């Protein structure tokens, strides 16, 4: 049968009924009919009633092997519908029967009405393209396909001025999943200063993207305190443990504040005087708020917050720069330079000549 033929015969029911009776039932076809059947019923239908109704479940209930094969098939089909997100309701068909019955509530099944303006639809279309993670990219595009089926028109050519590239660590999926259903998780965590990963037990409140890095925030069951963990430091799989709904995250919690408190804006109130050789240390010149030509180079005024940190930068510039003040900066630079010299002297003393 093909559609060209079918369309010519569209008003003739005969060939179509024949096709219905003769084609071998595919699994997909059986499942489509199962969904339509369960959507159309208000009563709960038992497995036996479904078998007697939906094409593809024909079997002899009196034959134990045949009946068992049907039950396995029906279990597989239910699992597949659930995996797809079809809300299968279970109830008893009537007061005299303990046999479970099934139906699909239309209200639970259907995507609610959604009307997107063209610029909104364009934004959703762009958002769906952002994921670089294969699993989330697939979820975004199947979600978008549902919106289109609901009548939303998405311009595939639409672009925004700036497109974020969204990458996530492997732990993202399991952690957001656990946070959503409020299950505790266990994972191995390796901070770089530790040699071995440490097992952590966490009630995950949510996942946060802060300055391009992902963190999970929650209640640490061992430390009995709020903790943040960087997703890139999680080693191996995240395991959800215990029941769903095991905890309640604090209401109105700003998750980002837990991560951001360690890296707030820094005030650069210090003023250093640094002499720079002509044409050198371009990076330092960009930070300077003032530059005056002097006898042995340009004299820069450089704002800073931490003496040791600025000293480390100046040490990297070597003889291209000289710290003139304040005295504690000058001392810090000299101290660090001496440490570098001593370190490399030790290195050459211990190195085996080749």
């Amino acid at each position, binding site marked *: 049968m093909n559609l060209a033929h*079918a369309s010519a015969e569209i008003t003739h029911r005969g060939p*179509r009924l024949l*096709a219905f009776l003769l084609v071998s039932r595919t699994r*997909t*076809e059986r499942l*489509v009919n199962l969904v*339509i*059947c369960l959507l159309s019923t208000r009563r709960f239908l038992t497995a036996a009633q479904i078998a007697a109704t939906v094409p593809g479940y024909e079997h002899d209930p009196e034959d134990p092997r045949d009946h068992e094969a049907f039950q396995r098939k029906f279990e597989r089909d239910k699992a*597949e519908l659930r995996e*797809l997100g079809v809300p299968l309701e279970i109830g008893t068909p009537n007061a005299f029967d303990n046999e479970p019955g099934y139906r699909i509530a*239309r209200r*639970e*099944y*259907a*995507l*609610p009405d*959604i009307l997107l303006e063209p*610029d*909104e*639809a364009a*934004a959703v279309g762009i*958002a769906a393209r952002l994921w670089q993670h294969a699993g989330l990219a697939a*979820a975004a595009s199947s*979600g*978008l*396909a549902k*919106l289109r*089926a*609901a009548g939303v028109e998405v311009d595939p050519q639409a672009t*925004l*001025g*700036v*497109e*974020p*590239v*969204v990458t996530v660590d492997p732990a993202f999926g399991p952690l*957001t999943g656990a946070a*959503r259903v409020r299950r505790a998780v266990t994972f191995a965590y390796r901070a*770089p*200063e530790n040699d071995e990963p440490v097992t952590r037990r966490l009630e995950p409140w*949510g996942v*946060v*993207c802060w300055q*391009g*890095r992902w963190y999970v925030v929650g209640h640490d069951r061992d430390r009995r305190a709020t903790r943040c963990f960087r997703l890139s430091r999680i080693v191996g799989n995240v395991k959800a443990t215990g029941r769903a709904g095991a905890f309640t995250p604090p209401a109105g919690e700003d998750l*980002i504040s837990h991560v951001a408190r360690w890296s707030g804006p820094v005030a650069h109130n210090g003023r250093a005087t640094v002499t720079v050789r002509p044409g050198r240390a*371009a990076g330092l010149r960009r930070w300077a708020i003032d530059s005056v030509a002097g006898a042995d180079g340009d004299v820069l005024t450089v704002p800073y917050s931490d003496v040791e940190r600025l*000293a480390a930068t100046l040490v*990297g510039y*070597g*003889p291209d*720069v*000289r710290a003139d003040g304040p005295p504690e900066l000058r001392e810090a630079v000299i101290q*660090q330079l*001496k440490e*570098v*010299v001593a*370190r*490399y002297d030790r290195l050459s003393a211990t*190195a085996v000549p080749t």
Partner: protein
Amino acid sequence: MTSASRVPHPRASADRLGRLLNLVPYLLARPGIPIADAAAGLDVTEKQLREDLELLWVCGLPGYGPGDLIDMAFDGDRVTITYDAGIDRPLRLTPDEALALVVALRMLAETPGTGTRDAIERALAKIESAAGDLAGAPVAVRLPADTERLDAIRGAVERGHALHLTYYTAARDETTERVVDPMRVLMVGGRGYLEAWCRRAEATRMFRVDRIDAFTELDEPAAPPAQAVPQDVSHGVFHPTPDLPLVTLRVGRSSRWITEYYPVEQVRPDGDEWVVSMRVTDLGWAQRLLTGVGPDVTVVAPPELVDRIRARTNTALDQYN
């Protein structure tokens, strides 16, 4: 063995079921749509779409009589659903679908310089409402707030002109002037980048927006040549290549963080220290970074970098005598 060959791949079958349940409402919303357009819109081949329609054509309500089956009318190459058997709406979003769309929209809304932030936020509210209970995706996003410069660059790129840049190249510690043909503006790992064809380097370059110290729009249009191809940034912006110099360091415990901030080739524990190798674009950059990075980082190779650090440190120290 035998069951594996008889049972169709479960994923493929679930994918097809999802596609079929979506197909009826898609066509219902677009009566008389050309089959080719529907196939393009659904991202399937025309052949696949026709096979899907053939399958739906024998599905329907119990009874499965003429008035129960899904029905459609064909007019040339156009198709109209005339009876939907009750699958007139798409299936609701799964948790993963809601999460993927909501988080991507939050990411877009947080991205500085997108001209249509208002539309993004309206879309987000509607998607969250359609997702119902799933809307509270447990994910929060905040990107850096330096919107001003990114905004200015984006505006210039949208107007389609070539740009004259004053750009600081950290690898060589120099500020240079160059003319570029902009290709796109993007955010990677929380940083803004301008990808453009650099006429000076005659190659595609990724310019960090916070290092563009000044720019002017030229009168001529941006015209990247055919060989200007956008870079794949899904694994970051810096892709070390084997021709770059390989630097080996000994790193003490308190400086191990550098392996999280810079792409490293290899980390090998040796006693309490780590032996770390990394590729660098420029030995001068490596010298500036690694001399001052911390009291427990020592470069052990290549020898010319070690010599350079020693010589420059000694000369620097002489200035203070």
